[in-house]
């Protein structure tokens, strides 16, 4: 009798959304639990790190890892899982591209900690010790994992076999990949479980997207009304669909909000932000420098908009000099 395939789920600097996406498999999750041996999944099962360490190498058929690599502990854990697993699947935008957690790369760890633990108006002691600062004086407390100098994506730390993009990925995609895995169909190395082409191919408004778009001033969502049937771009609202991989069925557009790029760049684009810049530049009207500067100025926080999900994997998010 063949042994059941073994799978594991782990979160680094995650938020639980990728776990929710798996739990959204609903009844299918029960079949997974019957057909496979889930050896590690902290949100649902009581397995401990020691149980994972005790497994022989390559014992796990596939480990699904989400969350960005933020702490030194995450590096240790994903290297452990890499040793124990035949296949590593990065699921969720954080594991794929660093996710929004990567926005921290424009600051040093010290700046992040100082802000949260000293500068917030509700903090009681603006000069108090930061977590992990001094070693515990009487060794009563366990050592606290430290922030790495910069957030990393999973593939920047260990070899990754496949990627499931999305923040979080659609439950249907998670279900399909997990089902394949437990039936012995491991993904081909380098597979990205999303469309190769842009979201526009799935967008209900694509017919209203003109070939040439000329914007003299970009608008902001908070003080603009827009036509819910028409492409955002000619209405002066930035939607990153044209440079984002499809695969989500345009769920945000169907909720009448523009795409923010969580599936990452289409296959032909290397740096998502650069792709977004190419898109936006191609829509800018005007020919003199003053007009162009004013036009660019109408975009609120261009850097944050264009690197929202992918900063950790961009040269612009490389982290502080050491």
């Amino acid at each position, binding site marked *: 009798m063949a042994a059941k395939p073994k799978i594991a789920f782990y979160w680094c600097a995650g938020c639980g959304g990728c776990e929710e996406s798996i739990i959204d498999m609903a009844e299918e999750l029960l079949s997974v639990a019957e057909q496979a041996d889930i050896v590690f999944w902290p949100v649902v099962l009581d397995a401990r790190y020691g149980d994972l360490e005790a497994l022989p190498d390559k014992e796990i058929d596939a480990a699904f890892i989400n969350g960005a690599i933020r702490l030194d502990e995450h590096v240790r854990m994903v290297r452990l899982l890499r040793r124990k697993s035949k296949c590593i699947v990065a699921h969720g935008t954080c594991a794929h591209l660093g996710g929004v957690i990567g926005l921290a790369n424009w600051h040093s760890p010290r700046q992040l900690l100082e802000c949260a633990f000293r500068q917030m108006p509700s903090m009681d002691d603006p000069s108090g010790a930061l977590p992990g600062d001094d070693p515990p004086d009487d060794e009563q407390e366990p050592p606290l994992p430290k922030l790495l100098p910069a957030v990393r994506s999973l593939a920047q730390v260990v070899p990754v076999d496949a990627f499931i993009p999305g923040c979080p990925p659609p439950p249907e995609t998670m279900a399909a990949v997990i089902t394949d895995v437990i039936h012995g169909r491991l993904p081909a190395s380098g597979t990205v479980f999303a469309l190769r082409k842009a979201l526009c191919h799935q967008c209900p408004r694509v017919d209203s997207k003109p070939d040439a778009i000329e914007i003299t001033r970009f608008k902001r969502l908070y003080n603009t009304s827009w036509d819910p049937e028409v492409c955002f771009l000619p209405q002066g609202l930035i939607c990153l669909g044209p440079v984002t991989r499809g695969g989500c069925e345009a769920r945000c557009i169907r909720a009448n909000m523009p795409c923010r790029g969580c599936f990452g760049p289409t296959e032909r684009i290397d740096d998502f932000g650069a792709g977004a810049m190419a898109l936006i530049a191609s829509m800018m009207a005007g020919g003199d420098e003053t007009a162009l500067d004013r036009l660019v100025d109408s975009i609120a926080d261009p850097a*944050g908009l264009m690197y929202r999900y992918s900063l950790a994997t961009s040269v612009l998010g490389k982290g502080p000099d050491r």
Partner: protein
Amino acid sequence: MNRRICIDPVTRLEGHGRIDIRLDEEGNVDRAFFQVPDFKGFEKFCEGRAAEEMPTLTQKICGVCPTAHHIAGVKALDDLFGVAPPPAARTIRELMHLAFVFEDHLLHLFYLGGPDILVNGSACKAGKNVFGVFEELGAAVGRQAIAIRKKVRQLNALISGSALYPVCGLPGGVAQPVAETARQQIAATANEALAFARRLLPLFHEAVLKNNRFRKMARSHAFALRTYYMGLVDEANRVNFYDGRLRIVTPDGDTFVDFPAAAYLDHLREKAVRGSYMKILYLKALGWHGYLDGPASGMYRVGPLARLNAAAGMATPLAQREYERLFNAVGQKPAHNTLLYHWARLIEVLYAAERMVVLTDRPELSDAHVRNLPTQSPAEGVGVCEAPRGTLIHHYRTDTRAIVKQLNLLVATQNNAAAICLSVEKAARALIKNGAVTDRILNQVEMAYRAYDPCLACATH
């Protein structure tokens, strides 16, 4: 020889944690420490971002409660821009929030903390999970629970884009109205949710409240903390998840203070803890005296039991009846035993379902007018809601271009941070004696934090 026991990681909750227990020479607990090894820095890296992105950006703090952040965030934007949403938008927002509370509380009951109280006490580690729960309660109940969560999450996808990633919030409203055809589907789901909640309560009574082991633990001092309690209440001091004033009661149940969330800085303080990334919130008026409960300590609690303690009742009839039942059973109000969070949570499930039915009946739900555009220049805004796990406050300061200059987030489980640490230590002290440590005992120690339904990614952000 001094021994050290580590529960690593803690499980069946959202986020990272470990419990470090030190035993003295006699094998009794010297100290138990609850560490949260997780930190991302949202309060820093959201600076410089456009304010209108906050509801979708801050919800990346937590994929289990993104809707709570979305709602608190959009309400902070309302305040920031000085714009109120039209009635349809307010109803839509409250509806999506309650739908989320309903299914998130059920997530806890079936997947997270519930296995502790629903799976037979002697079950080994391998059985204490959702699969064990479905075996215990039967496949039919399991299927219904899964199905109703799916339907309610689909309801939220209909309104907001995705239950995993709601996007509809805008200052002064929401992005799109609810079509009349959608309203019918939503109403059907709300009624199914209520029917399920009504079936669930008696099941809970049988399976849990009549269970001797649970009854013993629910009466045990090992799991009780006499703290202050805080929650949002409406004008009649009834629990409200969407809006209201924050009410704090003393460990004896007297009103301590009642204030609008915008004044939170006058009442709540945060402190850093060396050895953990989770900041602790405490009452400013009383100050921080260490991990102590009692009326002289600034320790307070939020979340289901705390909300019921801080309020004078529930705003819907079935939930009100169950609320009275709980306090009659306990014999006093406030109820201090942490395990009663499980019961209080189900009372809130019932309330959420009843309230969803009320809201789906409101004529303005399918109104076309769902947005008022801001006209004022932004400066500062505070938004509050009750997340399933406790009070959630978003505070934004921006420049006149609505670029965030500072944001401060006081997130649900943080309000419980001190109590969680103390609960774990107290339970460990009471249960671990003379070096006897078994999986079963450690599970009971873990029950001391799981009842809170902690969300640690939220608490550390």
